[in-house]
């Protein structure tokens, strides 16, 4: 099982509902976030191109954060998700500096926090909060190993990219372009 997420940059309107849903679902402290929306404007007027991306932890297959964690608090879990065990984390910030996507932050309680792909919801058969709440239905979540899953289907049909594949992290967050 390999969980992955595909996000349609053509359908996303940048409303930030995913951000708020995540903050509510995961009780993210005020002033922090596990996902965020980036707006990239490319080109010179009048030839402009805009891309909206809802970004979060890429749950990489070759995670620098898991590699550099001195205590094993950062680890691979069910379906390839990358998680942090609160009570093993010493808050050394090594994983934060090692993440090319800057997806991690220090929770005010001291441990390092990040997106979990809402694994607690997924285990119950639900979608991650951000996916479930998206008003344009531009996010797809599922198992890459299952050819019938929503995410496998859409990745077969559409062109997609991952962020900085040259970093060698093998990210599991796809952007449909």
């Amino acid at each position, binding site marked *: 099982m390999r969980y992955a997420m595909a996000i349609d940059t053509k359908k996303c309107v940048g409303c930030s509902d995913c951000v708020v849903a995540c903050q509510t679902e995961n009780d993210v402290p005020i002033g922090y976030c596990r996902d965020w*929306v980036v*707006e990239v404007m490319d080109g010179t007027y009048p030839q402009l191109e805009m891309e909206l991306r809802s970004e979060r932890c890429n749950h990489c297959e070759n995670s620098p954060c898991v*590699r550099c964690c001195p*205590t094993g608090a950062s680890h691979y879990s069910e379906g390839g998700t990358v998680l942090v065990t609160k009570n*093993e984390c*010493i808050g050394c910030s090594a994983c934060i500096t090692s993440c090319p996507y*800057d997806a991690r*932050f220090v929770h005010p309680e001291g441990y390092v926090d990040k997106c979990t792909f809402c694994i607690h919801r997924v285990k119950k058969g639900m979608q991650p909060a951000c996916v479930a709440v998206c008003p344009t239905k531009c996010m797809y979540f599922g198992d890459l190993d299952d050819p019938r899953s929503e995410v496998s289907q859409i990745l077969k049909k559409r062109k997609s990219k991952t962020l900085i594949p040259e*970093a060698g992290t093998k990210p599991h967050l796809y952007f449909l372009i």
Partner: protein
Amino acid sequence: MREEIIISGRNNPLIDPQLHVWHWEIPTYLFLGGLAAGLMFFAALYTIRNKENEYKTAVQIAPMLAPIALMLGLVALFLDLHHKLYFWRLYTTIRLESPMSWGAWTLMVVTPISMIWTAMHIKEVFPRWNWKFDVIEELIEFFKKNKKTIAWIMLISSVILGIYTGILFSAFNARPLWNTSILGPLFLASGLSAGAAVVIWMSKNHAERKRFAQLDLMIIGIELFLIIHMFMGFLASTQVQIDAANLFLGGAYTAPFWIFVVLLGMIVPAILEGMELKGYKIPVAIPVVLVLFGSVMLRFLISNAGQASRWLY
């Protein structure tokens, strides 16, 4: 033209607008650790080569600073942790892929050894020192009998400590400036140079001072060689590493790096030490303080500039 705006939510403190999770604690520790590694390296080296009496300061007196430096460094490391009460988690596991785990375990070996070495030689500095308990005296006698073995352990562990202070940085995928294994030998050389400088400062023996001035000159040469190679490597690499190198070649860190680290921390003390070897009278404190200052600055600048460098996407 490319413009990137983060339109929502993303304002995680210490990450936006620029990553700054490591402050003064880490570079301070890296300096103190490197200094301790340098002091212990020379003490072990000259013990193994049976030159204890020729280089008394290097073997017996200067290494007494090592446990102090290590303990202050450990305090800095502890202050850096955000989840402080869980620090013992470092010692419930060995993770070969994580340089920080290597470092934690190396410190577990190096710190006690530096203390044993100090205990073995404390009567050289404080002749009336009394351990009060016979057990301790006997234990120290035992260590003294196995001095060579301890020196070998100290030699190897101090090299690991010195290299690890640089490798700690280079293992982080996300920071192009740190993604060079030259940081390991560079930080080791910088630590050895700092150690040699302290020996020069503390020694009252002319021959010893001369020997360590020669050593320091040689190490500074190696450091300059490594720095040039580091930039050559960056400039021949990918765009992100070219950008990282440009932080020091015209970017925000250019002036502090070339003036404080290279000029004041390496070239000026090298010239002064060279002049001293030629017979000019120069207050020994000047080159020594400059070398130590350069060594501190190197850590701070690499730490801060590394956090400013990133992948582009």
